């Protein structure tokens, strides 16, 4: 075994991968949100559709998005590997446990939260990403150029209350996942400092509320607009 595989196969190495991919995915969320918020610009989807097209054709973004999928996969695979390891570390469970007195609920349930987010992700990708890439897309014309009209797909989807509920609830799960994951990633990387850790904690809390809330705002607003 080389030192790389040895390190990455150790418990700490696996956690390192979780933390690094987690931080990347956090960054991705910001970029993704910035793009999506354009759905709320009252121009009937023009900004959004142009933005989507530009992103799709940018080679750099294409590489990043492949990386993004890889990181999601690594995050999921290592989560599964570590969960199995953790489960096998305690073959017999306690009959009574007062874990709530020593740790937060979300910190103990990252696996469940992550699984729900994964299911959401599948729905999300099937509903939008797959349609954008491989589906029969309506088109729109801005300044003489033809663009895929993603906005239309999205607004149709979000006129369905069920779809909206799934999105909003899922963002709740994401919030809890982030509320632990954000600061936890820094701790795993060894970035713990008397001066900065409290700040990281606060940013983490703010981030875990703000980002999912803004994501959730989009389907809600679009649903209201559809009425």
């Amino acid at each position, binding site marked *: 075994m080389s030192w790389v595989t040895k390190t990455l196969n150790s418990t700490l190495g696996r*956690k390192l991968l979780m933390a690094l991919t987690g931080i990347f995915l956090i960054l991705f969320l910001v970029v993704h949100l910035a793009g999506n918020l354009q759905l709320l610009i009252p121009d009937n989807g023009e900004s959004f559709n142009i933005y989507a097209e530009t992103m799709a054709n940018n080679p750099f973004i294409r590489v990043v998005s492949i990386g993004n999928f890889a990181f999601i996969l690594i995050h999921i695979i290592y989560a599964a590997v570590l969960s199995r*390891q*953790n489960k096998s*570390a305690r073959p017999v469970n306690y009959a009574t446990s007062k874990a709530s007195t020593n740790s937060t609920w979300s910190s103990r349930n990252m696996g469940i939260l992550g699984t729900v987010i994964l299911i959401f992700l599948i729905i999300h990708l099937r509903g939008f990403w797959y349609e954008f890439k491989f589906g029969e897309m309506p088109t729109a014309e801005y300044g003489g150029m033809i663009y895929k009209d993603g906005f239309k797909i999205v607004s149709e989807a979000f006129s369905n209350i069920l779809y909206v509920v799934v999105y909003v609830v899922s963002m709740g799960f994401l919030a809890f996942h982030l509320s632990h994951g954000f600061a936890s990633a820094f*701790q795993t990387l060894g970035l713990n400092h008397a001066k900065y850790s409290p700040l990281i904690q606060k940013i983490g809390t703010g981030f875990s509320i703000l980002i999912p809330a803004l994501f959730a705002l989009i389907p809600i607003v679009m649903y209201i607009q559809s009425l």
Partner: protein
Amino acid sequence: MKLTLKVWRQKNNADKGGFVSYPIDGISKDMSFLEMMDVLNEQLTEKGEDPVHFDHDCREGICGMCSLHINGKPHGPQQTTTCQLHMRSFSDGETITIEPWRAKAFPVVKDLVVDRSAFDRIIQAGGYVSVNTGGVPDANEIPIPKKIADEAFDAATCIGCGACVAACKNASAMLFTSAKISQLAMLPQGQVERKDRAEKMIAQMDAEGFGACTNTGACAAECPKGISLTNIARMNREYFTAAVTTENV
């Protein structure tokens, strides 16, 4: 006080084990938890029943030998060792559930006694400064800033009881391991072997079958000596630095 004790009984490691309930009366609030267990055992012995086996020794909170998962928490409701827990923390008529530490790396020996020799093996993997007796420099030739010495001391107060493993939902031994790695990483005496130590101790920790850390903080919250999570972050740093910079290929 009158209590019902729901105690895990297991004849030996091969036995399946299960809970047995014992009513117990006449418990004084001034008794320590282990003295209450002594009363139970005296009564069981008088009745000809095998007394409940549990580990304990100094009974002043420092040797780290006592354990017990009491009412869902390692060392019971207070952040102290079981031997320093007193019955005034319980109320009359209560049912108290008593279980052994649960972890693959801490197999049950009998009843509430578990085998924590995995901790010894982690220390053996590198939890020391390799100096032989004699031939060392004068103690005052190694000045250490007071703050560093104090911080190293805080990490060094770990009593090796295993409450961190017991509390962690993943039965992870990171708080224990990191306390020793931290202590020696902070002190000048520990610098020479610093990187090797981190790699070796963590490899041993993994080999023992402990779980991974998910940063829930349960270990530090339950640690009777208040060992801080900072140590785990420091251990992570030490390990990644070692992995990248040593020439051990």
